[in-house]
């Protein structure tokens, strides 16, 4: 009887010790965003599995699209050709404006306004299964020079998220509609400062919240939202989205905007992590 009681206590003591060690290990490593040994090892082992599953899903989607979406693809192709023609015309006038701008800058002895980004391209290997956050995992990590806090953009320069957790060969990115996101932004042509934050209600519909606008700022539907560059994590001038709707807060004292991101998360497969940037205004 005594031996049985001692054995039971030993088992429970062992379980308690393992639990405490696990909690301390996970907590300590997660505080600065760097994944712990267990998380990193799990992520590294799971990376090839995620890639294989994604490749299979992409192939299946391709077959499905070829069989069932041919007419839709044909119409989309025609529309894209039309947009391409318009874009080429705009490019032609933009080139003339750029040349004029360069001549004027030279005349006034102004340095050229430019943004230099150092990118690291990565593929999205897994979207979060959580219903309480909006994050995804990419195929590059610390070994590629990525750091926690680096912003993530699409090939069109649209902001889509920020790195929050880092492994050796993987990283977790929080999207701009996640509840914990907070980005300093400029609103529309006037460039009034505001804050883009996450809201759980809006996250369910794929939107973010524009709030804490400078006093006197008029929020207008259709205004484009850009990053302001404050906080040094996000370069200035990245497109976030547009104001889809202006609503009144619960207290009725102020208004806030509903931001529809320009980036389409459903079709996102490749992203670019901005490791270093220089913005000259």
């Amino acid at each position, binding site marked *: 009887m005594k031996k049985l009681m001692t054995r039971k206590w030993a088992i429970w003591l062992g379980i308690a010790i393992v639990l405490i060690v696990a909690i301390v290990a996970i*907590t300590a490593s997660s505080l600065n965003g760097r994944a712990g040994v267990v998380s990193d090892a799990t992520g590294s082992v799971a990376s090839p599995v995620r890639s294989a599953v994604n490749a299979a899903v992409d192939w299946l989607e391709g077959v499905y699209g070829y069989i069932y979406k041919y007419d839709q693809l044909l119409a989309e192709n025609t529309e894209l050709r039309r947009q391409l023609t318009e874009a080429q015309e705009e490019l032609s006038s933009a080139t003339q404006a750029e040349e004029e701008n360069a001549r004027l800058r030279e005349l006034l002895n102004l340095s050229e306004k430019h943004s230099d980004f150092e990118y690291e391209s990565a593929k999205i290997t*897994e979207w979060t*299964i*959580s*219903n*309480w956050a909006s994050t995804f995992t990419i195929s590059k990590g610390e070994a590629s020079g990525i750091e926690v806090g680096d912003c993530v953009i699409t090939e069109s320069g649209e902001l889509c998220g920020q790195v929050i957790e880092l492994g050796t060969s993987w990283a977790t990115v929080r999207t701009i509609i996640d509840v914990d996101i907070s980005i300093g932004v400029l609103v529309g042509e006037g460039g009034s400062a505001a804050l883009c934050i996450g809201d*759980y209600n809006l996250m369910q519909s794929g939107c973010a919240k524009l709030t804490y606008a400078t006093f006197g700022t008029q929020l207008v539907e259709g205004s484009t939202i850009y990053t302001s560059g404050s906080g040094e994590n996000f370069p200035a001038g990245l497109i976030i989205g547009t104001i889809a709707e202006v609503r009144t807060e*619960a207290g009725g004292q102020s208004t806030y905007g509903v931001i529809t991101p320009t980036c389409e998360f459903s079709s996102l497969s490749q992203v670019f992590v901005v490791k270093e940037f220089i913005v000259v205004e």
Partner: protein
Amino acid sequence: MYFSLINFEKLRIAVKYAIVLLVCFFLQNQVLSHVSFFGVHPMFIPAFVVAVGMFSGSVWGGVFGIVSGIFCDIGFAENLVLFTISLPIVGFVSGLLVDWFFNRRMFSYMFICAAALLVCAFLQGFDFLFFSDSSLTALKIALLQVMFSLPFAALIYLPCKKISAASRGMQ
């Protein structure tokens, strides 16, 4: 001499449970991440912990709860140690409930699973349910998450029951 210290029967059972756990994680993280029902993803790992606790006892439930909890916390970026703490408790309590109140049949299992899934969903959405303006939305999402997880929880019942039956057969 040292091999005689190892209980190979228990080790065999643990490996079988570990395989079921790996399959559950693969299904949860790789397959169901591409599938959602009304925008909600199922989360049925607590059902596995309930099954282990139910069929193999509270100690086994607690141990597998710790292992499952650690891997769940790794997978969910927004949680720090939520599942590492809650899943061992779920596993342990499941074992106790079966020892004192419930039988090991499908209905009891589904009832305990529903309770465990509800507790885990509420813990995940605790901030949104009680400290934000999104309480109703969070409640809806929590209930949908539980509802869509139950069919997957039912799939775990038979494999765990067979593993447990095989272990009792050895004894």
